């Protein structure tokens, strides 16, 4: 005989109807809250706006900025910290200079800075695929930083575990990234976050108001503060100063390096970059690729030769695919801040070269 059932020592015993109500209310809340939130949280980007550095991992915010940029700018520029402008202020980035040079263009401001710090090609693919859905029917400048192919480690093709940037954007199950060793629950959470905007909104909430902590850890840091008061509905505005000290790589004390480089037929990052182009094209975008800049002076002769050969192969592929591109000329030695980031003057020079390039003009006219 079955023993009698004593429910519990609390009264939270819900009926069938109650559970249906809960399900419906949760569904509505989860669907609508991120949308309502957009109305509650102030977001008035300036012409030279870039995602605040501290929100580099806030993909919900990226998605919001991306949506805004796609409706207000004819061109969006996507790339890593080279596009974002690691060593320069708001009015010294590549998109800014392009806008300045095209000031007479009736569509001013022309180009939005969708650069995100640390976005390597594999992460870029995830970023555009899941959080950049509004990028369609646009002119897209895609930046390729060759540093991501400078070694097997950066290429994510090494088998040794490596803590790389933006793991939440890379493929979680297929294709397998050998150096990515996250456990199944973590990967599953990431998949959910990609498809449920509410989940990425939760990440936004934590990043923006709770220093990327859950409420428990946050209240351990600030035990006497009301955690709900922390929600101010204010998003940090990007600081108008370089994130890193704007000095040249020589002043920084960097020396010549012998990057091994990864051959492009085996490169995971190059393969991902090609997928980014295909994805953007499938959304009817007109893609223009900027290969580099890259500091040739930091490379040993042997490494430089391997780099040139690799770049040539990439250019050939782009040419064969009919994709407009430009490889900016080498800058003077002192205009590089490190291996791949130019300083302010470097950006200005690249922008000038770019807007004068025939392929760019033709692409712009399309």
């Amino acid at each position, binding site marked *: *005989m079955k023993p009698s059932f004593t*429910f*519990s020592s609390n009264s939270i015993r819900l009926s069938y109807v109650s559970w249906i109500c*809960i399900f419906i209310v949760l569904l509505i809340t989860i669907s609508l809250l991120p949308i309502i939130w957009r109305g509650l949280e102030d977001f008035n980007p300036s012409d030279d706006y870039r995602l605040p550095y501290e929100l580099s991992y806030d993909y919900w915010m990226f998605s919001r900025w991306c949506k805004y940029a796609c409706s207000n700018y004819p061109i969006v520029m996507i790339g890593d910290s080279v596009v974002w402008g690691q060593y320069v202020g708001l009015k010294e980035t590549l998109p800014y200079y392009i806008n300045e040079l095209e000031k007479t263009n009736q569509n001013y401001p022309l180009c939005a800075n969708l650069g995100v710090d640390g976005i390597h090609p594999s992460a870029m693919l995830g970023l555009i695929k899941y959080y950049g859905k509004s990028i369609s029917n646009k002119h897209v400048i895609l930046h390729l930083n060759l540093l991501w192919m400078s070694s097997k480690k950066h290429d994510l093709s090494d088998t040794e575990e490596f803590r790389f940037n933006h793991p939440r954007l890379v493929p979680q199950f297929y294709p397998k990234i050998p150096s990515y060793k996250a456990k199944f*629950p973590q990967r599953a959470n990431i998949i959910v976050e990609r498809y449920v905007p509410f989940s990425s909104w939760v990440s936004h*909430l934590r990043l923006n108001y709770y220093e990327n902590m859950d409420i428990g850890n946050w209240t351990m840091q600030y035990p006497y503060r009301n*955690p709900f008061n922390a929600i101010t509905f204010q998003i940090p505005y990007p600081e108008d100063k370089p994130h890193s000290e704007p000095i040249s790589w020589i002043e920084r004390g960097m020396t010549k390096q012998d990057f091994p480089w990864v051959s492009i037929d085996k490169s995971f990052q190059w393969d991902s970059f090609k997928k980014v182009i295909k994805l953007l094209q499938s959304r009817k975008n007109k893609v223009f690729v900027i290969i580099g800049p890259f500091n040739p002076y930091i490379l040993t002769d042997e490494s430089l030769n391997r780099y040139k050969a690799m770049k040539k192969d990439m250019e050939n592929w782009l040419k064969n695919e009919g994709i407009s591109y430009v490889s900016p000329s080498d800058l003077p030695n002192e205009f590089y801040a490190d291996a791949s980031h130019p300083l302010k003057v470097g950006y200005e020079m690249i922008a000038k070269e770019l807007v004068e390039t025939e392929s760019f003009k033709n692409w712009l006219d399309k």
Partner: protein
Amino acid sequence: MLFHSWYFLIFFIIVYITYLPLRGTKAYLYWLLVASYVFYGWWNPLYLILIAYCTVTNYYAVVLMQRTQRRKLWLIVSIVNSLAVLCFFKYGAFITNNVNTLLSLLGVSYVIPKPGVLLPVGISFYTFHAMSYTIDYYRGNIKREPSLVRFATFISFFPQLVAGPILRASDMLPQLTGKPEIKKENITDGLSLFIVGLFKKVALADYLALYVDKVYDSPNLFDGLSLILATFAFGWQIYFDFSGYTDMARGISRMMGFNLKLNFNNPYLATGLGDFWNRWHISLSSWFKDYLYIPLGGNRKGKFNTYKNMFLTMVISGFWHGADWTFIIWGALHAFGRFLTREFERSNFYNQKIPKLAKQIAVFAFVSFAWIFFRAQTLNDAVLIVKKIFTSGFSDPQFPILALFFCLAVWMYQFLYEFFVNRHSKNGDLETYQNFTGVRFYNISKKKLAIGSLKVVVVILMILYMIIFTTSGNEAFIYFQF
């Protein structure tokens, strides 16, 4: 595999979907057994050898009891066997440590090597399940279970396998006979229990653990107030953690058509230590009462023997929790507490003159004091904490206000809940609280639509709070280590 993990969600969906159509067939027991073994083997497949051994030996001990005239012999063999397994895996390191200390004190240089075995999770629970079967059979309380598969399923039934509630063969084996009935209420009750349990674990226990762990990991860095608050916080943490687990276990079982007994009944509202043990880990308390305290003589042979039996039961119960002196002292403290208060609790003065709230606070304070020994990593730490609580200063404890709010809110809720029930009992709508059942409470509260809608709001807020504000770090349950 933790209940609040992706693994369990996927596991349970597969198990449940397959289980539903299989219920009408004989295959469902095999399916439950496979599921339970997968669940348990997830930690370490080698554990399966142990649980299978425990199952087979106890099952055949009863077979031999039935087939031979030596019932007592086979009972002793099975109990010794179960306890030997428990001792070796759980207490091996503790025993060798203490023997080695003793040997060195006696000047003997020989050191007994420590058994290098890992403590299998849940061993204390399933050995007790098995022992309840052999003892109950010996006493004639139950019949021999003819099916080894059914018996194995009873021992390894996955929802409660690793942290209880401790099942009795007399409760569970009949439920595994025939087709488990699943009505709408099973699903809704199961979900209700599961959500409350999940909230207790993820939003409350793991939250309090942040402060408790910080303080108890380095008690020398904190002074009196921090240590007091961390101790109170631990009291609530272990309650939320353990009762959260059992709520989830009961919820899952309920959804599968099985009823597991209530294991926690608002223990921090207890008005006496006896009352506390009737409300805290009820399945363990009643197990020890039925299989140790009463066989020892219970309260039948005078006061001295009653207290002796009580002392032994409490100390063994403490030792059951963990292989360390701190647990033994914890058990002993509760035994002394009972010595000091048992008669007093029965007096008219205690029952009529002392306000209920004062009694509840006193019990909570005593239980919390005892938790110091339960939680401290070493005996030295426990002594240090007690010393510092009484001697060191009271600087800013940096205890989160939100955590304090949660604990007080739960306490207040439980307080009101019992008040609500008792108020009705005075009106004759309900029997006394002791006789109260959830079904009766449900029938009354169902009439109160306002409360019904309030519960819906509370559950929505709980779920949203968990999704938005907590991170499931997949922290294991405290009782897994026992």
